[in-house]
């Protein structure tokens, strides 16, 4: 493992931390920009969560209750977009901003002004997207927000897309620009700013997983840009990409979209893999089992992710050879993923485990993400997918990998590094409340979805057949409970941000390793201005 030559650099006097609004608006500091990203992501998490609450209120009872079907569709659409592009991805970029330079001994991100640009594009992009929701809810004539699902399949988004579709297209372009610049920054930082002695195979797994994630982002966000561009030109300039009458094909849209979309789902999980790989060794007090196999597994998952996209499309019609290929490739991904889960468990094997909150989240991640992985394996089987496709089983599957997967990973990271960020320990009581209530409610929310899905309840409908009533009532209770639980996190974070709580030592976890624990808590404005020597 990495051992660190102590190189405590005192502050240089010429680098004062800027104050006031300029500090945040003009920032070139990776920690401040990381904080901006994390707060933005939290805000979007709450906004997207409110939309989920609307969905669950409507589905609590059969029949139409509170919203019109078209508004329900807008809620499912924008909930997905906000959570993916506004919640999970910016949270990861925020974590990368904070932690990657600290973990590799870099003075900052490689391109600090571009870093700030990647962040500040996001509020404007989401202002455009969310304005369409506000107009739909409160504007004159209630013009609909995007209502075609977050996957915006043609022709729902081309022929039939409302006027807001075009604004959605441009806001996705902006999100893409932001993501690509953020990813370039991470890659360049990792390749060029590592401290002397920090060889690639000594990097913490979080840095490795983010490096690979950044590669995926640069590879597929432009493809998404291509897809939305084709939607725009099909709508307004008479192109025929997704129009069979002109020689195009609506299925072409799905191919292009999922060529982006499947690597995208790994973009939303690989950084969490890295977080768990940091936390489990700390609290098991053992080095990570199989470090190099973790690196190779992550890289394999990333490469395979380019060869599995059409498993989202088994039911749309494609040649048998295509279905077989995509089924086998998808099943193959379970091998490197299995390696990772095995390694986490092997790391804990005979370890001196303690169960501080980051470890609790990590354990919940390992178990619940694996449930999502296993249902993914079921969905990968082409013939079985014909039953599961577009049912709540799919909803259950991807929410298990995204909520107790990606988002629990983010929560684990927040509890793990909050002492370093804020200089105070988190509030243990409310942290425990947050964990246990989230754990119970997230399962109440998503587990029954498997059953209603298998029984045939389709996704993206505002109503359902009567036999699904009981389950849906419980699912809604789970949803409300999970939503409310997040207020505990808000309290915990606000308390830390206002520096209330027990002071945190430089290394609050006795089993932790890595450069980030060699700097004071809270981490000073500038760190590693002179690179540390890593042995």
């Amino acid at each position: 493992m990495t051992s660190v030559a102590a190189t405590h650099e005192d502050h240089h006097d010429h680098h004062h931390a800027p104050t006031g609004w300029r500090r945040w608006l003009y920032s070139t500091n990776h920690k401040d920009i990381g904080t901006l990203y994390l707060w933005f992501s939290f805000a979007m998490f709450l906004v997207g969560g409110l939309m989920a609450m609307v969905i669950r209120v409507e589905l609590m009872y059969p029949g139409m209750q509170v919203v019109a079907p078209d508004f329900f569709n807008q809620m499912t659409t924008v909930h997905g977009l906000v959570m993916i592009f506004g919640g999970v991805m910016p949270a990861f970029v925020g974590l990368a901003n904070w932690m990657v330079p600290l973990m590799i001994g870099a003075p900052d991100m490689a391109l600090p002004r571009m870093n700030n640009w990647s962040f500040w594009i996001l509020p404007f992009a989401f202002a455009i997207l969310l304005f369409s929701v506000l107009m739909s809810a409160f504007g004159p004539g209630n013009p609909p927000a995007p209502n075609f699902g977050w996957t915006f399949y043609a022709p729902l988004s081309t022929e039939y897309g409302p006027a807001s579709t075009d604004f959605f297209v441009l806001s996705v372009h902006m999100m893409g620009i932001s993501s690509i610049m953020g990813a370039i920054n991470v890659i360049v930082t990792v390749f060029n700013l590592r401290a002397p002695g920090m060889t690639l195979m000594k990097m913490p797994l979080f840095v490795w997983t983010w490096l690979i994630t950044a590669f995926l982002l640069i590879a597929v966000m432009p493809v998404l840009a291509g897809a939305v561009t084709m939607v725009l030109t099909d709508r307004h300039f008479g192109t025929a990409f997704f129009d069979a009458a002109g020689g195009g094909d609506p299925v072409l849209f799905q191919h292009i979209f999922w060529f982006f979309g499947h690597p995208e789902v790994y973009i939303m999980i690989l950084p969490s893999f890295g977080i768990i790989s940091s936390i489990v060794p700390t609290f098991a007090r053992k080095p990570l089992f199989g470090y190099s196999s973790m690196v190779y597994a992550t890289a394999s998952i990333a490469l395979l992710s380019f060869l599995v996209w059409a498993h989202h499309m088994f039911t749309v019609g494609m040649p048998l050879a295509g279905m077989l290929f995509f089924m086998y490739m998808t099943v193959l991904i379970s091998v490197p993923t299995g390696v990772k889960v095995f390694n986490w468990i092997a790391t804990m094997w005979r370890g001196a485990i303690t169960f501080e909150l980051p470890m609790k989240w990590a354990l919940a991640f390992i178990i619940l993400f694996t449930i999502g992985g296993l249902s993914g394996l079921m969905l990968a089987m082409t013939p079985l997918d014909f039953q599961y496709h577009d049912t709540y089983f799919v909803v259950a599957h991807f929410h298990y990998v995204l909520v107790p997967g990606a988002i629990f990973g983010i929560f684990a990271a927040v509890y793990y590094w909050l002492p370093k960020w804020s200089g105070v320990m988190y509030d243990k009581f409310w942290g425990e409340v947050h964990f246990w209530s989230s754990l119970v409610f997230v399962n109440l929310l998503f587990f029954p979805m498997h059953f209603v899905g298998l029984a045939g309840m389709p996704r993206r409908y505002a109503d359902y057949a009567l036999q699904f009533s009981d389950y849906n009532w419980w699912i809604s209770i789970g949803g409300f409970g999970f939503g409310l639980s997040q207020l505990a996190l808000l309290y915990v974070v606000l308390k830390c941000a206002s520096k209330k709580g027990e002071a945190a030592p430089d290394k609050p976890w006795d089993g932790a390793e890595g450069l980030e624990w060699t700097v004071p808590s809270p981490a000073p404005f500038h760190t590693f201005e002179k690179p540390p020597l890593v042995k």
Partner: protein
Amino acid sequence: MSERTEEYYVPEGSPWPLVASVGLFLIAVGGTNFIQQSTAFGETLGNEGNWGHWVLAAGAVWMIVTLFYWWRDTIRESLGGLHSDQMDISYRQGMLWFIFSEVMFFAAFFGALFYVRWLVVPWLGGAGSNAMTHELLWPSFQAMWPLTETPSGETTQAMGAWGLPALNTAILLVSSITLTIAHHALLENDRKRLIIFQGITILLGLVFLFFQIEEYIHAYQDMGLTLDAGIYGSLFFMLTGFHGLHVTLGTVMLIVMFLRVLKGHFSPDNNFGWEAAAWYWHFVDVVWLFLFVVVYWL
């Protein structure tokens, strides 16, 4: 020319990223409204204003001015010796990854081309297990490429490869050679040769764009080959159009670098901006070669 520091330079706070985000916002809002207000499909959406183009233009100007000031700051820092060798590497790696992202953007459209050509059009013509699709939807449709008659019966002519396009290929290839000569001149500090050959490269770029516009006029006026003439026209104009936009951007970059050469900004060991523009130029050249082969020729 300039001394370099050892420390990695982390710039002080800068307003330009935020200001540039406002520029993008104006472009997005203005552009969307402009499109809705000026196209036929837009009329059905009920956007009846007539102001989108002003916001779009304001956003474009805003963006250009912002980038001018942003890069002015960066150039001053570079000439002031604040950039270390390590920082130079950051810029270079950043540019290469940016070009990779551009490659993937084109890949989406090339992918669409291959999918349409090898699968969609044959399927619409009844290939594989699609005999009934063909029979029920457009029984008179003939699968062919280039698709000069769409299933719904629109006709167009296909753009041949061996007139203007072949000439344009030669122009771009020669421009890559002249740029490489200029590059060697830069590295050998031969200002005169640098200025002459970079000037030639820029002229070749402009000639390429001129011919491209000629070709578009010919396509629209004489051939019935338009953006809305079915999937062949869509792919033809979107691929060559985005390529043309990139040539335009590359030419602008080369012109800016030409002005910076005249001001004496570059030296054999401090020339990131110049080399980035050159890389970009070679990238658009390579994209054109693919375009020439799969869009015009085969």
